[in-house]
């Protein structure tokens, strides 16, 4: 699960990681009196969406460009004016896709007098089963770029989750970053607090970028990102409460409620598959055959009539131009799946080509059920045959 920058900063402050003072605005009412509450001579106005690249992103209103997603301004009045412009604009960044995202919240903060910028992040390292604490003096930039070009500039220590953070680990990193004097102690505490936050809240990523050393000698987190382990939300009620459903794809939220795993993509061929690995492989083979998958959809190990029906409903609403059903019946018998498919299709109006591939236990009986149903579907002998047929059917339109 992802949260907004302002929510991440709220949790940072709760865990002893200093952030600039600021306010979140969602509408005209929040803008009133805001100018009077700001102080200093530099202010930062930031669109809050669940995607990166905001600083270089393009914000548009009614098709007219109104600037980037992040602004640095010189007066409180200017900050309020920019915030008003960004609210309700559509922001397109390298991570949003061409449709962009509606800006529904804006963060307005006091500026910070920057001396140096660093990168600091805690992330679960799956190979070593530890929390990797990574730091770099190349803060503020795309850390992926740094990792690719100059991996030696990223320094890592590994925190054993049974032991927790040890202060020497922070000192090791602080010295690698070239910190000295009081900043070392500040960094050791801040890094420890980040790891504590990571473990206490079941994060999968806790990132401060940049972490800034101000000219006054203080370490401040001026941007940050927190991702959480979905599997742990059952014990993180406060975190779960931060979810902003407005940032999610509505059809994905609906699928989630029906216990389907659905991810909307840019293509036109819908696919319905049992199992995550096979679902990914099905998308791949559609692409290999010259088509574009419209979604990832895992109906679970056991495809039932109800979740098959729901899947069709969601895919058809998302305007797919064809559907490929690929089910490997193992413990779940193919004839049961076939009957589920027939029942489901009696409830929805299907006006796009449908290719069905069923394999495994009681396949012959399953094919007989499909043939006897009178449904206008194309049967496929195997996965590749199915992918070829749905791509061809969609081309014919």
């Amino acid at each position, binding site marked *: 699960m992802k949260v907004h920058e302002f929510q991440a900063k709220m949790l940072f402050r709760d865990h002893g990681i200093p952030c600039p003072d600021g306010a979140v605005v969602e509408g005209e009412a929040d803008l009133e009196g805001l100018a009077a509450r700001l102080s200093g001579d530099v202010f930062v106005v930031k669109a809050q969406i669940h995607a990166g690249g905001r600083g270089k992103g393009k914000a548009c209103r009614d098709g007219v460009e109104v600037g980037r997603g992040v602004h640095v301004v010189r007066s409180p009045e200017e900050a309020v004016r920019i915030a008003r412009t960004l609210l309700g604009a559509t922001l397109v960044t390298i*991570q949003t896709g061409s449709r962009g995202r509606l800006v529904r919240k804006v963060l307005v903060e006091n500026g910070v007098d920057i001396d140096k910028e660093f990168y600091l992040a805690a992330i*679960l390292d*799956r*190979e070593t*089963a*530890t*929390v990797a604490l990574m730091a770099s003096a190349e803060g503020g930039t795309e*850390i*992926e770029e740094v*990792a*690719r070009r100059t991996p030696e500039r990223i320094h890592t220590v590994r925190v*054993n*989750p*049974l032991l927790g953070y040890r202060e020497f680990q922070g000192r090791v990193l602080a010295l690698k970053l070239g910190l000295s004097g009081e900043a070392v102690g500040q960094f050791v505490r801040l890094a420890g607090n980040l790891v504590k936050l990571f*473990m206490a809240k*079941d994060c*999968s*990523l806790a990132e401060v970028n940049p972490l800034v050393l101000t000219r006054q000698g203080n370490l401040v987190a001026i941007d940050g990102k927190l991702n959480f*382990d*979905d*599997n*742990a939300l*059952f*014990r993180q009620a406060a975190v779960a409460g931060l979810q902003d459903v407005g940032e999610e794809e509505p059809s994905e939220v609906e699928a989630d409620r029906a216990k389907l*795993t659905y*991810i909307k*993509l840019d293509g036109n061929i819908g696919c319905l*598959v*049992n*199992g*995550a*690995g*096979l*679902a*990914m*492989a*099905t*998308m*791949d*083979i*559609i*692409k*290999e055959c010259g088509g574009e*998958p419209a979604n*990832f959809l*895992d109906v679970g*190990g056991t495809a039932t009539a109800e979740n098959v029906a729901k899947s069709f409903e969601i895919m058809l609403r998302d305007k797919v131009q064809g559907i490929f059903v690929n089910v*490997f*019946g*193992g*413990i779940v018998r193919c004839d049961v799946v076939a009957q589920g498919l027939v029942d489901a299709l009696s409830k929805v109006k299907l006006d796009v080509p449908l290719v069905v591939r069923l*394999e*495994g*236990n009681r396949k012959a009986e399953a094919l007989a059920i499909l043939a006897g149903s009178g449904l206008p579907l194309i049967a496929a002998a*195997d*996965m*590749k045959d199915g992918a070829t047929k749905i791509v061809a059917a969609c081309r014919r339109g």
Partner: protein
Amino acid sequence: MAILLSSKTRVVVQGITGGAGKFHTGLMRQYGTQVVAGVTPGKGGTLAEGVPVFETVQQAREATDANAAIIFVPARFAADSVVEASDAGMELVVCITEGIPALDMARVKNLLASRGTVLIGPNTPGIIAPALHCKMGIMPDMIFSPGRVGLISRSGTLTYEAVDQLTRLGLGQSTCVGIGGDPVVGQTFLDLLERFEADPDTDGVVLIGEIGGNQEERAARFIAEHMTKPVAAFIAGKTAPPGRRMGHAGAIISGGKGTAADKVAALTEAGIVVAPTPADIGVAMKTALERRS
């Protein structure tokens, strides 16, 4: 023979009275697995699927000499169940449960590192050795056939797809292991490749990977340096967008790392036959085996 399983494998089912536990205990016994005990707190002294139920794994071991555990308990208790099985001296623990918090598994993995317990999973279909008629898992056993190909996979139904292709081509299997679709799992590709390399009854190995992490890259390096047996591979997720969790908690491209293209490149460079599509996995193994003979 097989890796990890043997004719001496005596299984205790943790969570035997739950829906999935009960159902699969029946299927495992039907197949031939020696299921000797079950554990469900509060249900000790009863029978489930004809198997005696105990309060703890320790009790079960003392009464039945069980030496391997399979776990079906709900996600919020499953990490504890792994530790309980290990504490009771189980040599092999297969955790079927999906949805366990990653940090819990990270702690458990660090704990097990200093012990002899071998953990498979979590979020795995399990392990099966067709010649032994022994399965600790939920896979449909009718598609498997005894033979000399080993298989290691991060997914479930995609594994069945591959096994089905192998069986049709006359390539039976020595042992098939699902390592699990979570970020932190017990046995990795590397651990199992090592076991298959040492297994006199395995001639070649199929490796089915997916996006996320760098297990496949590490496996490629190991194969190039240490494996004498042929390996065929497939990587799922070529079309997966970055930053999205593709069903499995572990299947996510993050920070530009863990892409299918990187993995395919690493495997190809190590001389491994990589199947271009999921429909070509069986043929890829056949090609790899023929190349060596």
